[in-house]
């Protein structure tokens, strides 16, 4: 893409994990049997009226505060009018002028450099129902012969986060998406599960010659439902648009659809006329006013955000990558915090947690909280390694046994006889015996070859059952062979 610059903006839809829907008392239960969580309001039966869920309003204010937005003192619900079968009222209650939150920013880390993405607005709306396309070739809308509608999801509170066009690459977009996911999860307002659709992205992409001020024509790509898809869809769209422009074509302003299987974006429809949503203030709903006291109360209740937590973990001794990995996993974070709080080395605990502990969990399919590992175990283990009581490989064996539930690190090391032997007499006698058994190797070393030295170290370690300090073995062997 040399000579071209991409300009990217992202709209993120986040389903809030409230107990009840946005405007009615139906349970948020999208997994239940079809249409089992529906009432006159979310089915848009004649006569039904919406009443907003206070908890959802708190949720969006939390998101707005986390993104350093201004929380408007007064905000309004609007109707976005368009006909679609999964939208029961054939309008979506959303916001237009005066959304709940405006004008924030988010710092993200991309390959070690920090950049800022401007947040235009964060507004409250409601989700649509779910369509299942039947017939034709495999669930796609275009060759289906009919569609079934389930309105369990209709009316689930949805927060839309809109960025400024500040993003310049697919990697930045992905990093932004990941950070938003961390934030809403940390706030406890959403389960933020991309695979379950509780977070979805629409990406707006345009390209322009480097140095141009004027924006190119943009496309909006929908159905981008994973962080990997954000990256791939944007890469594809940038390439496609550059190609169009370089071959003398024009980019058309349109909505496109990301196809995960084929890895391409396709035009959703060529509209004969642009959408006209006929936004107007919803007369069924009152203005939403947030008092300074209410905003302050919510602010005080905010949990620590991922960025602050990462900074704290780095202060505790981890590197940035490890801190990121820890913060992204609440189980690891908790173990890390508790171990460090009890005096363990942050650097060492971070390495063990993101290395062997994660590997064990993946290998055995056991979630970390289901293992027997505790923060005191981690403190004890790293302490023993630091003091030279355990070799790194012995410590790994101890950790696995601890996670399997065989006891504390001390008990396990004792039982398995894994403590390092610091008694130089025992090592010396093992060295003597190995030297006697391998005269050829000794001769080679004496004639100047260094390679057999490693072999001899290995032999001594084997005789010692791995419990000797390899540094001590190495130095004794050198001394005795004159290497």
């Amino acid at each position, binding site marked *: 893409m040399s000579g071209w610059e991409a300009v990217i903006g992202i709209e993120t839809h986040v389903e809030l994990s*409230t*107990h*009840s829907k946005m*405007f009615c*008392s*139906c*349970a*948020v239960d999208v997994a239940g*049997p*079809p*249409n*089992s*969580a*529906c*009432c*006159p309001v979310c*089915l848009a*039966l004649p006569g039904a009226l919406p*009443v*907003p*869920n*206070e*908890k*959802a*309003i708190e949720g969006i204010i939390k998101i707005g505060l986390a993104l350093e937005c201004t929380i408007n003192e*007064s905000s309004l619900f609007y109707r976005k009018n368009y*006909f679609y*079968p999964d939208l029961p009222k*054939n309008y979506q209650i959303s916001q237009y002028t005066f959304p709940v939150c405006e004008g924030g920013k988010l710092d993200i880390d991309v390959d070690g450099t920090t950049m800022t993405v401007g947040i235009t607005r964060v507004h409250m709306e409601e989700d649509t129902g779910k*369509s*299942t*396309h039947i017939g034709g070739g495999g669930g796609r*809308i*275009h060759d*289906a*012969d*009919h*569609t*079934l*509608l*389930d*309105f369990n999801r209709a009316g689930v509170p949805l927060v839309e986060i809109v960025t400024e066009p500040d993003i310049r690459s697919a990697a930045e977009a992905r990093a932004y998406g990941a950070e938003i996911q961390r934030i809403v999860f940390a706030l406890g307002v959403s389960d933020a599960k991309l695979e379950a659709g509780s977070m979805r992205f629409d990406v707006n992409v345009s390209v322009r010659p480097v140095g141009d001020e004027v924006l190119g024509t943009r496309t909006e790509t929908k159905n981008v439902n994973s962080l990997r898809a954000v990256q791939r869809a944007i890469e594809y769209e940038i390439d496609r648009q550059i190609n169009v422009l370089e071959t003398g074509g024009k980019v058309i302003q349109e909505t496109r659809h990301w196809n995960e299987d084929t890895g391409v974006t396709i035009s*959703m*429809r060529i509209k004969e*006329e642009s959408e*006209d949503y*006929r936004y107007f*203030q919803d*007369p069924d*709903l*009152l*203005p*939403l*006013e947030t008092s300074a006291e209410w905003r302050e109360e919510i602010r005080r209740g905010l949990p620590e955000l991922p960025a602050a937590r990462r900074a704290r973990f780095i202060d505790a001794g981890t590197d940035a990558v490890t801190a990121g990995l820890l913060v992204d996993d609440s189980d690891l974070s908790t173990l890390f915090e508790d171990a460090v709080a009890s005096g363990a080395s942050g650097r060492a605990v971070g390495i063990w947690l993101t290395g062997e502990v994660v590997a064990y969990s993946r290998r055995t399919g056991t979630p970390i909280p289901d293992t027997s590992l505790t923060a005191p175990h981690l403190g004890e283990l790293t302490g023993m390694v630091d003091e030279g009581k355990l070799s790194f490989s012995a410590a790994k064996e101890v950790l696995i046994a601890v996670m399997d539930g065989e006891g504390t690190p001390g008990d396990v090391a004792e039982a398995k006889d894994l403590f390092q032997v610091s008694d130089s007499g025992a090592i010396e006698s093992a060295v003597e015996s190995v030297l006697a058994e391998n005269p050829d190797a000794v001769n080679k070393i004496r004639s100047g070859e260094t390679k057999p030295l490693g072999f001899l170290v290995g032999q001594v370690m084997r005789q010692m059952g791995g419990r000797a300090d390899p540094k001590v073995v190495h130095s004794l062997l050198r001394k005795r062979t004159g290497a």
Partner: protein
Amino acid sequence: MDESSTRVGTIAAMPVDIDIAKVARLARLALSDEELEMYGAQLGDILEHAERVQALPTEGVAPTSHPLPMVNAFREDVARESLEPASFLSEAPDVKDGQFRVPRILG
């Protein structure tokens, strides 16, 4: 009662330009050409009349969306029982496997 006596303060109004077919598409109404013509003409009449609202100076006047100055009606986040699906599915034109069925969607 004749027109001049019923129409209080009618002012001469500009003819209104309406793309009635587009309006009907937006409103999802499948109207015939004759119907479009009829409604188009009637809308023109009504809108010429409605244009009178533009004669009133409203600089600095705030719009009224709500008759009463109330704010903040909320509901507690408590999930209550939903409707028995049979109670509304029985009223739907086409249902299959507990879901509402519609024909092919253009998208």
